[in-house]
């Protein structure tokens, strides 16, 4: 059975939600405290949403220095599947594991609302099982979700099919409507929307399942890379 490590920084708050979503899909999820330096034994790693270190200074700015992040970096370099959701995405960009940065929303307010995402690439551990141009209804829940990067980076993302999810109706001013991106190998993915909040129609949508199912089959896939 797939063993997923869900990293917990002080101030994280979506760790239980991420873990329960993994459980729903038949994986075992374990909470990994941010002081951990060794991630061997895990098949995949999730950096969950929340406010690591209170989001003080900048979202992810202090979390990137937590001991666990070096281990996450090694795990990623070895081809392991790493998923950063919301605050986790912000941490991954601050840590340099994904390019660009996430700025305050265009409207300068926090936004918690459903959004319609478009699958724009299957070349990632998060979208491998989704179909191209598929529309997914998944909520966002952030203050700083406007993806920003320089032209060179943007062209590189486009050229290498690394923009994996875009907003149908851009809520926050993200460059190129970007909702999620992957690294070159596609084994590290960050997205602002919360697939773990879209696992059941009782709560409004189960469109997040296809993404997290892809992610769980990733360990195999990423070895193949």
């Amino acid at each position: 059975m797939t063993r997923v490590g869900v990293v917990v920084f002080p101030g994280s708050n979506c760790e239980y939600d991420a873990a329960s979503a993994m459980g729903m899909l038949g994986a075992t999820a374990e909470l990994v405290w941010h002081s951990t330096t060794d991630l061997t034994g895990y098949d995949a790693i999730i950096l969950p949403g929340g406010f690591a270190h209170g989001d003080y200074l900048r979202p992810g700015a202090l979390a990137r220095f937590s001991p666990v992040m070096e281990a996450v970096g090694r795990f990623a370099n070895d081809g392991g599947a790493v998923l950063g959701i919301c605050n986790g995405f912000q941490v991954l960009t601050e840590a340099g594991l994904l390019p660009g940065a996430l700025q305050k929303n265009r409207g300068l307010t926090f936004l918690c609302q459903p959004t319609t995402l478009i699958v724009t690439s299957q070349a990632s551990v998060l979208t491998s099982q989704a179909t191209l141009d598929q529309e997914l209804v998944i909520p966002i829940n952030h203050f700083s979700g406007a993806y920003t990067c320089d032209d060179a980076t943007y062209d590189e993302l486009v050229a290498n099919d690394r923009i994996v999810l875009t907003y149908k109706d851009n809520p926050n001013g993200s460059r190129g409507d970007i909702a999620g991106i992957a690294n070159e190998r596609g084994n590290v993915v960050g997205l602002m929307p919360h697939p773990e909040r879209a696992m059941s129609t009782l709560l409004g949508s189960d469109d997040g399942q296809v993404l997290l199912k892809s992610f769980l089959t990733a360990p195999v896939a990423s070895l193949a890379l």
Partner: protein
Amino acid sequence: MNYSVIVDVSLRQGIADPEGATIERALPALGFYGVTDVKAGKSFRMMIDADSEAEALERATALAERLLSNPVIEDATARLSGVHAS
């Protein structure tokens, strides 16, 4: 010696500044005219224990670049603040 240092962090040229833009839009309604190019930034004050101004500045600059700013979108500069010197 204890030096009082200020690190100014501002958005890099060409990076969108919705905060500054919003303030600028609001100004005329409040009776402030002829104010343009409003840019929102951050500043951090701190005391640094160092042997010389040069060392204090050097360490403040390192801190500013490694931690207090995100080079992807921000510029940071450190300065000694005469005012708050202790």
